[in-house]
């Protein structure tokens, strides 16, 4: 491959050389960032695409998950010949700061105490996650990204990337996302956090020691509540309706009589196997604190002032978590800033989750957007 660096590394980890300065005012020492990469980086390091994952996502975007054994979370989109084509692009996906798949988070060992941070982990923000990613790219010697792409919380990171490092991003794709968390968004997250903290196993976050049990019941409930927000009412009706689960009649009890109950319980149980409850607290907090206009005098357009980045915004008509109006708000700010911005609302019955599922239009748009950059 000559000067090309090879290539698919399903997960590796970098320890950042310098402390990470956080929005809360604290510094985090010895931060580790776990990441995966696919496709070769070209000689002038100009073909890198950073993919930012959602709340409970991870770096396993296009390779099997080591805990669940399931395929990567965006294999429809990322791979050889796929819309984000690893034959053309060097794709990087890093586990976010605060998460639990190899990057530093509340379950990591604090270098000062030698014990897990737990609730001594500082409260982080989306901007902090992006700062850590930028330091990872510094380490990799990648100055400018061909594109940053993300859905949901990944989209928030994409917007922050452009606002924080305008010169480092050629193109930005923001899918099913928002420029700020609404009261309703915060409300659902608070339900999840309270479920975790109400679990007696949570113990103020100090559940890592002596083989104690994790607050799995609370985390499962948090996941169940959140999962409802990822689906549409019509989609739930179509998939489950009022159908009963493996029985002919209601039991007049509190078993999972309905298919939807069984499905949600299953989602909750599977989730706790792969996710740390304290990470869930910290990352949902980061999302709730997200309001890109706040740091720009309340004017979202100011976040994009003078930008030369190309933007692609996609929303889904049945997404009520981050509805189309949120994407339109971003679009209007981009237009006011004179930015080159595309936007479309796609139809899907699948609600917010649509961005993770098969969607031929989304795939064609992503391919066109990434390949359509004018040669400067």
């Amino acid at each position, binding site marked *: 491959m000559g000067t090309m660096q090879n290539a698919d590394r399903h997960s590796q980890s970098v320890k950042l050389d310098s402390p990470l300065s956080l929005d809360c005012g604290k510094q985090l020492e010895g931060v580790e960032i776990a990441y995966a990469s696919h496709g070769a980086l070209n000689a002038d390091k100009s073909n890198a695409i950073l993919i930012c994952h959602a709340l409970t996502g991870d770096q396993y975007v296009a390779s099997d998950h080591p805990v669940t054994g399931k395929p990567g979370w965006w294999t429809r989109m990322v791979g050889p010949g796929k819309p984000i084509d690893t034959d053309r692009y060097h794709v990087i996906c890093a586990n976010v700061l605060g998460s639990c798949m190899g990057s530093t988070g509340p379950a990591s060992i604090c270098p000062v105490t030698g014990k897990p941070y737990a609730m001594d982990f500082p409260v982080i923000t989306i901007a902090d996650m992006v700062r850590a990613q930028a330091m990872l790219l510094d380490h990799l010697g990648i100055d400018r990204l061909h594109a940053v792409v993300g859905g949901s919380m990944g989209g928030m990171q994409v917007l922050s990337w452009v606002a924080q490092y305008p010169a480092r991003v050629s193109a930005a794709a923001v899918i099913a996302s928002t420029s700020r968390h609404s009261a309703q968004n915060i409300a659902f997250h608070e339900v999840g956090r309270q479920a975790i903290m109400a679990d007696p196993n949570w113990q103020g976050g100090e559940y890592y020691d002596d083989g104690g049990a994790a607050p799995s019941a609370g985390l499962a409930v948090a996941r169940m509540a959140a999962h409802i927000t990822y689906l549409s009412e019509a989609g739930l009706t179509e998939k489950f309706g009022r159908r009963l689960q493996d029985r002919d009649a209601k039991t007049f009890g509190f078993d999972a009589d309905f298919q939807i109950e069984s499905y949600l319980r299953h989602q909750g149980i599977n989730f706790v196997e792969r996710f740390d409850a304290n990470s869930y607290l910290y990352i949902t907090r980061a999302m709730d604190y997200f309001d890109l206009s706040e740091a720009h005098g309340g004017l979202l357009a100011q976040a994009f002032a003078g930008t030369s980045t*190309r933007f*692609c915004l996609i929303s889904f008509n049945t997404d009520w978590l981050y509805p189309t109006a949120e994407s339109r708000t971003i*679009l209007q700010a981009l237009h*006011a800033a004179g930015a*080159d911005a*595309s936007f*479309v609302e796609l139809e899907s019955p699948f609600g917010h989750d649509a961005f993770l599922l098969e969607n031929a239009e989304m795939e*064609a748009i992503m*391919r066109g957007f990434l390949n359509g*950059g004018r040669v400067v």
Partner: protein
Amino acid sequence: MTQLRPDQKIIAAHVADGARVLDIGCGSGVLMQELAEARSADVLGMEINPAKVAAAMARGLSVAQGDALKDLVHYPDQSFDYVILSQTLQAVKRPDLVLDELVRIGRQAFVSFPNFAHWRVRLSLLVGGRMPVTRLIPEQWYDTPNIHHVTVDDFRALIRDKGLQQDGQWFLSGDTQTGRGAANLMAEHAVFLLRR
């Protein structure tokens, strides 16, 4: 690849090289692509139909799904060299308000529309007594997107009332250009280049 319509050819021929252009009602981006390739223009599009927006985006064009009447207000003053509204004026709810936005956003604005006073349209209504259905106005009255039929003289009156400057006017009969003399009667199609 779809061919340019005759009015789009006139517009493409009169856009300066390297201009910044907004094409409103851009469809799947045929004119945008021509302007980008032949004129090295920096072109953005707006289109109301999401399937057409998706098709344009899939071709790598920058198109925002939007409604001219609602969404043009978000663009800054004079932020484009040209704003193009081709075969769309007669389909928007308030053509007069959209025209105000065109000349606010663009230093110049191309507007093209089918002329409802063309002799064939007049004859069709006069003789047949039914709403005309012609090559350029192919829909029936009940399913036409053209909710504000307009004539060349109507449009001239509107731009006079608004005090707009005319930098160019072109008229088409069939697919060929025709004189401006009896345009209101003879032109099937008109293209105006305006400024505030």
